């Protein structure tokens, strides 16, 4: 045992010794850092241009990462927090831990105008219900039509308290129905097969054929087309528009490498980064590239409108919205 400890210590000092270059540390969620995720390619590309080391530290969720930074307090090694959804960025803003990035955002080509000067988007997508064309031909094209489906038509959703898509649907319905959202949830609840903790469980159940539709992203079919050569998964186009997921990153005020951190944020708006995103994070990049999107993305359905709720309003009512949902769906 003592030998092992010795080697661990030796190993960690070796790692420290090799770094005369500055190390930029990014805290993020773990599917970003998976070997098939964007992190390895991003690291390689950024280290070519920055004369630095890039290190990712991951936890199981982006909000968990934020809490980790808060718990670490002054000791945190994080320079950048990457991966919060715009809908959760308000929670992070309240902590006062992040600084203004001061970057020119005119390059961004998002479906909505971006004005936030703390949180910078690096990819985006839309929430949508995925279905299997081999199983269902008739699918709903709006929230109203969803209610009118036969009783046996089931959907799987995620808990908004623990999952980003779950929160997305909550806000989506809030945006469409306003004060009547609670009533809508009540009517929808017979169609809900189960509410899972996270996306993985829900999508897994759907692939097992447990329900007709699952809450996911409009870009989900791209994975099946590109990686599995399957074209039977599609998303239901809702005429009210689709709620958007915009993933953002921000620099910590406590960072010792602010200049480098800014350089990284600038890099997330580059073409290099934009070309990595689609097939590693299965979402849209925030800038247009010469190369364009990979084949397979062209067959995805693009919503006519990206719905979003204003940050301030969301922050004021977050708890209220969730309680409304809890009371309605019992």
């Amino acid at each position, binding site marked *: 045992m003592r030998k092992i*400890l010795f080697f*661990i*210590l030796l190993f*960690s000092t070796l790692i420290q010794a090799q770094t005369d270059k500055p190390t930029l540390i990014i805290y993020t969620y*773990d*599917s970003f*850092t*998976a*070997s*098939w*995720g964007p992190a390895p390619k991003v690291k390689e590309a950024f280290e070519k241009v920055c004369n630095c080391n890039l290190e990712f*530290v*991951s*936890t*199981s*969720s982006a*909000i*968990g*990462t934020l*809490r*980790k930074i*808060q*718990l*670490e*307090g002054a*000791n945190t090694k994080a320079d950048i927090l990457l991966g919060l959804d715009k809908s959760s960025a308000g929670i992070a803003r309240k902590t006062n831990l992040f600084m203004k990035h001061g970057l020119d955002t005119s390059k961004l080509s998002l479906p909505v105008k971006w004005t936030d000067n703390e949180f910078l988007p690096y990819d985006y997508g839309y929430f949508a219900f995925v279905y299997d064309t081999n199983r269902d031909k008739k699918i709903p094209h709006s929230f109203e039509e969803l209610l009118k489906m036969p009783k*046996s038509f*089931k959907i799987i959703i995620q*808990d908004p*308290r*623990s999952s980003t898509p779950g929160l997305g649907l909550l806000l989506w319905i809030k945006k469409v129905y306003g004060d009547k959202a609670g009533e809508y949830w009540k009517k929808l*609840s017979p169609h*809900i*097969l*189960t*509410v*899972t*903790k*996270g*996306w*993985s*469980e829900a*999508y*897994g*159940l759907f*692939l*097992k*054929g*447990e*329900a007709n539709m699952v809450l996911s992203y409009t870009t*989900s079919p791209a*994975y*099946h087309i590109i*990686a599995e050569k399957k074209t039977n998964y599609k998303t239901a186009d809702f005429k009210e528009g689709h709620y958007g997921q915009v993933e953002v990153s921000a620099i910590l005020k406590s960072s010792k490498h602010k200049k480098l951190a800014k350089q990284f944020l600038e890099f997330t708006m580059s073409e290099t980064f934009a070309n990595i995103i689609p097939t590693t994070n*299965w979402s849209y990049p925030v800038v247009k590239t010469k190369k364009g999107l990979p084949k397979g993305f062209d067959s995805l359905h693009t919503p006519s409108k990206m719905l979003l709720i204003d940050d301030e309003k969301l922050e004021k009512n977050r*708890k209220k919205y969730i309680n409304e*949902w*809890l009371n309605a*769906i*019992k």
Partner: protein
Amino acid sequence: MLSNSIWRFRLSIIPGSLISFLLLLLAFGIFYTLFLNSGFENFSSVLITSRVQGLIKFTLFQAFLSTLLSVFIGTLLAWSLAHQNSFRGRDFLIALLSSSLVLPTLIVVFGIITILGNNGWINRSLLYLFNFSFENSIYGLGGILVAHVYLNASFAARSLLHIFESIPKERYKLAKSLNFSTYRRFALIEFPAIKLSLKSISSTIFLLCFTSFAIVLTLGGSPSYNTLEVAIYEAVRLDFDIPLALKLALIQLSITMFLVFLSSNFNIGISNIKTSSNQIPWKEPKKLQFFQLIVISIFTILFILPLISIFVDGFGANFIKILSNKLFLKSLITSLVIATFSSIFTVVFALLISDARRNFNINYRVKKTKLSSFINILISFSGNIYLAIPSLILGLGFFLLSQKFQAPLLLWSLGAILCANILMSLPFALSIIYPTMQKVALRYDKLSFSLNLNGSKRWLYCEWPYLKSSVAYVFALSFCLSLGDLGVVALFGSNEITTLPWYLYQLMGSYQTKDSAGVALILLVLTLSVFIFLPKVFKNVANR
């Protein structure tokens, strides 16, 4: 008087008590750090909402039902298996019984859904044969109960089987010669023998169901079927309300304390110890035999089908791709190393703690006083810490401690994982090892005291022959539990340590269902082989 007898048994009391003390200290440290982090004023102002009260009520209710069903089915199955001891594939079936408990819960849930879900095998065959299917039968309270019974009844059956098998055959002979009915035989011979274990197993199962997370969330169907853990999760992650989380954790702690209190103060009169492994020469009556075989077949099918579905799902995976992945190999090795260390520690801890605890439960060793019963409860509580502290709070506590006492993160995370795995296996280990050790003491104390047999000799000649099969089982169980545990790794977010279940969840979280099914199959095969081969290895070593 008390101090005299404690002095006399110091060698058996001190090591185990020390471990217990350290475990309690750890639990206290975790709560204390959290408390420091939240501040007293905040703490006293937090209110428990009516929703949380509802959650607690529901959780108690579902845990109660789950325990009742699991223990009933477990006993029935163990009883049947004990009387049918010579059919083919029995060893394999017993190994299978243990494996469901130790697999990552989500895999088991998916296995159950593959069989009983809307689009499950049963529904699909019904649809095909009779054009009829159950709708959503598995989602809701029913689903929670099915999954809990699936996991825990097999554990109960497996551990009770040990007890049934160690009932002296002379007693069965006596029952036969007195012409006992099956009921009288159970009531007068078998039930008194399993009573002690039944209590400790029931309280362990109750706590497991009370703290169950993935099952309740996935199969519950709606947020009204949630658990306390969800409320804690919400408080920590979403609201960052550590005082509330702490309060919720304290509720769980008090419930656990209460249960431990209830189940730790028992005395047993008869000592049941296996005297010979000779089989009973006569068979059960035809009708009874038929009934027992039916019970065994029904539950075998029910228990095995979800595991078979894991095989079927995993078979299509590209194993060359999985096995050649560097991250997979790294996770596999990490998991195996951690499992080895934590299972060794668990066995040693369980033996020492049980050894120390029995002093306080046996009147002629340490006279029963208020103090000695209190120590007895404390020791038995120290083994159940994992069930008393919600895992999220445990992770949070470790994290805060790591902030306080700076050390390389890798060391901290290794320590935390090892520690969490040991804590997780201890309740099972103790509920298996302790009853046997107490019985051995009751039966052989006088003899070994008069022969002056103590220390390592006593262990070797007196305890080991009776403990070896339990130890083999506990070793296998804790090895596999730690192999299948996602645990606190995720909260720590250390890049250096990736375990096999973590890798599996990663695959699931990024559309790679095929590969994740393959990894699940590998985990299942690993677990089964440990359960089948480890007891054999122990047997061979012992026979030499």
